[in-house]
C-alpha cells in the first residue's frame, strides 16, 4: 500500500467511488435489452470476483515474501489478504447465485464456469484457515501457510482450465452469458464499480491489518508490563 495515501483518505475515496458507482449503475447506465433489470447485478458481481482474485494474488505475493525474508509481518499481511479474498469469494458465490436465479430461474448452475471456479477456490481457501488454525503459531505456521497460499495462485489458472475442459463432457453449455455487449455508459459504470470495490477491499484490508497489528502490539506491551 502506498505510504502517502493514508487510511482516512482512502476511506473517503472509497465512499465517493461507491456513491458514484451506484449512481452510474442505476441512473446513468441504460437497462440491458435482453436481460432487463437483473443485468444490474453484473456491475457488482464481476468486480467483486475480480477483486477476490486480486486479494488472493496479494496474499500469495506476501506469502512469497514470507518465504524470502522470514518476515512475521508479511505472514499477517498474507493472512489478512486471503481472509478478505475469502469474504469476497463468498460474496461472489452469493451474488452469482442470485443472478443465476434472476436470469435462469435456478439458484445454481454448473455451466457457469466462473461460479464453479469460485466454489473450488472457496473450498480451497476455507481449508487454508483450517490448516492455519491447526498449527501452533510460529515460523512453521508462517511457512506452511505461505506455501499453501502459493499453491492457491497456481490452482486458480489450472482450475479455470479444468472447468473449461469439464464443461465439454459434463454439461453441454445451455446457458450463455454473452460477453460485454456494453454501451459506453454501461462500460463506464462497470469500471467505476470495479474501482469502488477494489478501493473498498483495500480499506477493509488495511483496517483489519491495523487491528491485527494492534492486537500483537498490545500483547507485547502486556508482557513488558508484566501482566
Amino acid at each position: 500500500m502506498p505510504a502517502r495515501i493514508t487510511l482516512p483518505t482512502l476511506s473517503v475515496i472509497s465512499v465517493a467511488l461507491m456513491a458514484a458507482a451506484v449512481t452510474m449503475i442505476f441512473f446513468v447506465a441504460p437497462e440491458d435489452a435482453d436481460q432487463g433489470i437483473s443485468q444490474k447485478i453484473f456491475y457488482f458481481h464481476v468486480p467483486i470476483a475480480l477483486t477476490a482474485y486480486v486479494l488472493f494474488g496479494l496474499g500469495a505475493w506476501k506469502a512469497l515474501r514470507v518465504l524470502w525474508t522470514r518476515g512475521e509481518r508479511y505472514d499477517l499481511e498474507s493472512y489478512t489478504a486471503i481472509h478478505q479474498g475469502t469474504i469476497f469469494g463468498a460474496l461472489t458465490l452469493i451474488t452469482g447465485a442470485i443472478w443465476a436465479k434472476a436470469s435462469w430461474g435456478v439458484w445454481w448452475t454448473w455451466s457457469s464456469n466462473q461460479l464453479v471456479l469460485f466454489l473450488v477456490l472457496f473450498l480451497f481457501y476455507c481449508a487454508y484457515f483450517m490448516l492455519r488454525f491447526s498449527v501452533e503459531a510460529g515460523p512453521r505456521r508462517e511457512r506452511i501457510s505461505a506455501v499453501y497460499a502459493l499453491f492457491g495462485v497456481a490452482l486458480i489458472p489450472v482450475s479455470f482450465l479444468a472447468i473449461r475442459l469439464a464443461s465439454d463432457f459434463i454439461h453441454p453449455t445451455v446457458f450463455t452469458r454473452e460477453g460485454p455487449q456494453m454501451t459506453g455508459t454501461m462500460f463506464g459504470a462497470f469500471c467505476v464499480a470495479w474501482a469502488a470495490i477494489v478501493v473498498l477491499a483495500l480499506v477493509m484490508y488495511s483496517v483489519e491489518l491495523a487491528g491485527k497489528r494492534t492486537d500483537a502490539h498490545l500483547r507485547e506491551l502486556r508482557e513488558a508490563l508484566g501482566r
Partner: protein
Amino acid sequence: MIRAEEVEKRYGQRRALRPVSFALDRGGFLVVTGANGAGKTTLLRLLAGLAAPTRGALAVDASRDRLGYLGHEALVYGELSAVENLELFGRLYRVPERRERIGMLLERLGLWEARRERVSAYSRGMRQRLALCRVLLHDPELLVLDEPFTALDEEGADRLDEELRRLVGASTVVLATHDQDRVAGLSTGHLALVAS
C-alpha cells in the same frame, strides 16, 4: 565457533527462550543448565538449525553436515534395525567407509549384539545409545546434546562418558543437562538459563 547475541525464541505469544548471549570457541565444551521450561531444548534446537531465532543474532560456524544433534527423541526409524538406520543416515551424510565406521560405533556403544533387531524392540536406553551412534556417525565438529544422560543406565552412561572424553578438545560440544556433576571435569563453560 558459536556466537549468540540476545537470541530469543517465541512461538506466537509464547516465549520459549529468554534473550541469551554467549560465545563458544572451537574445541570448547559448554554445559547448559536450567529448570524445566527455561528453554534448554529450544536453545539446542536453534544451535542445531532445526529452528530459527525470533530475535537476536546467532552465528554457528559449522556446516550442517558436520553437526551432530541428539534430541529428546532418537530421530531414527522404529521399524528399521540399528544397522539399517545407520546405513541410511550414513548414506545421507556421505560417510566414507560407512560399514566399518558403523560397526565400530555399534561395538563401542554396546549395541553390536542387537544390531539386527528392530529399534521398536529396544529399551529406551538402547535407543538413546543408537541415537548417539547416529550423532557420532559422520564425525561432527560440533555436537549438540540435549540431556544425553537421561534414559541411560549405568553402563550406558559410562560409555557416553568415554565418548565425551574422546571428543574433548577435538570437537566443540554443547550439552544440556540438569546434572552438572556428571560433566564437571569436562566443561570449559557454563550457561544457566532462566525460565521466562
